[in-house]
């Protein structure tokens, strides 16, 4: 059994195995879909910058599963970027080893290595003198794809990151908003279909709303692609939202805790992690669950191009005294209440309450709660990729789900603590009896 823990650091990472057991894949749903990612193994990775009194990264050992999104989170200057940049050898480690899919890449040609590892950075790093298409085409061209294949791939990638190829293909980076640039940056990183993607605070330079959208997009992408992603951020909420597992780093990249977001929230390893988690763990828990994980209810809908009479009849006769009015593209448009009928004089233009906010299935429950709280109807419409109506989520559903989740977390944490205690007791016993087994040492 691979021993991915050094005896010396085992204590600082008591929750390494996680409440759900060590061998289980991080996604519950990953088993069904194909995983295109590769495993990454960092072994005692150390970087000592010349002239610095202490190493910037000191003996990091970490196993990252294929198809997993691992977030490195920690205070500024703790060596996250250094750690990440050693994986694609932008920074040469002082000592230690890196293997990807079992292959030791510590000494192979870094240029070839980097073409197999997507790299996305803050402020996108797009080349300003190249069009969007040229930017995306760089890596596929370098790895020798045919012109035709590259061209198709560019379109495909733009589509994937939610930009219309016809509109954006020949634009220059400066003709894009910050969020669009970041999308292109991700498209470029993914263009040659690398199994591994490294992202260094990629959404650090965009406004909070755009950042939120980009995070949702990344989650959707990852659901489709199952890359192995190492994502660096100093924002714990971002880590919670994105990570399958989170490595909380303290100074010199010492791992304070490496576990699932749930486990870190409910069972922080020490004061440092608790401090980093900050207040409001229950609220943060809402970031961990997606709208798709709760029950999306049906709702009575009508369309703006339905005959007025039909809409009237439905409102009067139906058991619900509220209807959801969809526009011609089936997007949620207005809530219609029975009381609104009086205001309809031959047209729906004045009737009903406009819907300002809706969420996708990938939105977090926190976003959904926010939307429910601000919407007068006490519920929020759930929409698909093109904004089309799918269903609704209401306050009651949200409350129930959150209670269930918190309860489950508590149980898991308790179980985990018990197993840790049992383990410790067994180890102590073994030590007392003088039969210190290697497996006992490793766990």
């Amino acid at each position, binding site marked *: 059994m691979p021993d991915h823990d050094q005896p010396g650091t085992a204590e600082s990472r008591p929750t390494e195995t996680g409440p759900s057991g060590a061998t289980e894949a991080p996604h519950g749903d990953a088993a069904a879909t194909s995983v295109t990612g590769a495993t990454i193994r960092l072994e005692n990775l150390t970087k000592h910058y010349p002239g610095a009194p202490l190493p910037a990264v000191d003996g990091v050992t970490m196993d990252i599963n294929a198809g997993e999104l691992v977030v490195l989170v920690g205070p500024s200057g703790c060596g996250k970027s250094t750690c990440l940049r050693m994986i694609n050898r*932008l920074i040469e480690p002082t000592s230690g080893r890196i293997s990807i899919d079992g292959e030791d890449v510590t000494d192979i040609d870094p240029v070839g290595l980097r073409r197999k590892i997507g790299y996305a950075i803050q402020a996108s790093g797009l080349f300003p003198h190249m069009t969007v298409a040229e930017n995306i085409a760089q890596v596929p061209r370098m790895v020798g794809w045919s012109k035709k294949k590259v061209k198709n791939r560019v379109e495909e990638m733009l589509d994937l990151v939610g930009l219309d190829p016809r509109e954006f293909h020949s634009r*220059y980076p400066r003709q894009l908003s910050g969020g669009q640039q970041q999308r292109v940056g991700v498209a470029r990183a993914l263009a040659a279909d690398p199994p591994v993607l490294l992202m260094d605070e990629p959404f650090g330079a965009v406004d909070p709303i755009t950042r939120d959208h980009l995070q949702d997009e990344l989650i959707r992408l990852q659901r489709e692609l199952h890359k192995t992603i190492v994502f660096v951020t100093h924002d714990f909420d971002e880590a919670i939202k994105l990570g399958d597992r989170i490595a909380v780093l303290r100074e010199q990249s010492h791992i304070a805790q490496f576990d699932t977001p749930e486990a870190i929230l409910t069972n922080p390893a020490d004061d440092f992690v608790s401090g980093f988690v900050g207040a409001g763990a229950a609220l943060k828990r809402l970031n961990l669950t997606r709208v798709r994980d709760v029950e999306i209810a049906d709702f009575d809908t009508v369309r703006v191009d339905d005959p007025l009479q039909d809409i009237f009849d439905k409102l009067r006769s139906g058991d619900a005294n509220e209807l959801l009015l969809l526009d011609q593209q089936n997007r949620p448009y207005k809530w219609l209440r029975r009381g609104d009928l009086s205001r309809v004089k031959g047209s729906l233009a004045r009737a009903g309450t406009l819907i300002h906010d809706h969420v996708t299935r990938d939105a977090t429950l926190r976003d959904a709660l926010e939307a429910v709280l601000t919407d007068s109807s006490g519920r929020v419409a759930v929409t698909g990729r093109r904004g089309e109506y799918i269903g609704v989520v209401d306050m009651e559903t949200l409350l129930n789900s959150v209670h269930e989740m918190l309860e489950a977390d508590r149980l898991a944490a308790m179980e985990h603590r018990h197993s840790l205690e049992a383990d410790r007791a067994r180890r102590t016993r073994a030590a007392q009896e003088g039969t210190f087994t290697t497996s006992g040492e490793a766990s």
Partner: protein
Amino acid sequence: MNFWEYLGSRYQQVLVDTYQHASVVFQCMVIATVLGVAIGVLTYRRQWAGNLAITTTASILTIPSLALIGLLIPLVGLGVAPTVLALVLYGLLPVVRNAVVGLRGVDPALVDAAKGIGMSRTARLFKVELPLAWPPILTGIRVATQMLMGIAAIAAFASGPGLGNLIFRGISSLGSANALNQVLAGTLGIVILALLFDAAYVLIGRLTISRGIRA
């Protein structure tokens, strides 16, 4: 004979000189550009090397052109050789300086991104760094060309080609009938050439600077 009558009777000679003047400046600029950019590329990464390149080329520029050509004659003889050598040396400074400054000015995050997506050192240079440093380099080339236009006239001193011959002939026969006309024709020719070259650079800029970074 007034100036226009002079031009009318000697236009063939004037045209030949103008053509040769343009040609020698153009060719020297091509050499100076290639050399200058190469020196820039080789030195910009190291602080001392880049600064040395700039200082050296700058000190060449402080040598009076007449003196430099005079000094070159015993080494390479008369005619085209000292002219070309002097012009190339003078043309280097603006190109080298702007190449070094331009290449150093490329956003390190972009170089990092280029590296990070797997571009080799050469690819980085040709696909990212040089295209981004190209606008200042082109400005350097433009400035150098303007300078060489004037300096090339001195080349006639070493029996070199160009409009300098008209000017020199005029000056040496000052007082004779066509002296002033010769000087005038040579000078005007240089000014017009300089303007034409400048217009050409504007066009080259349009064609070679990516729309994504054009001011």
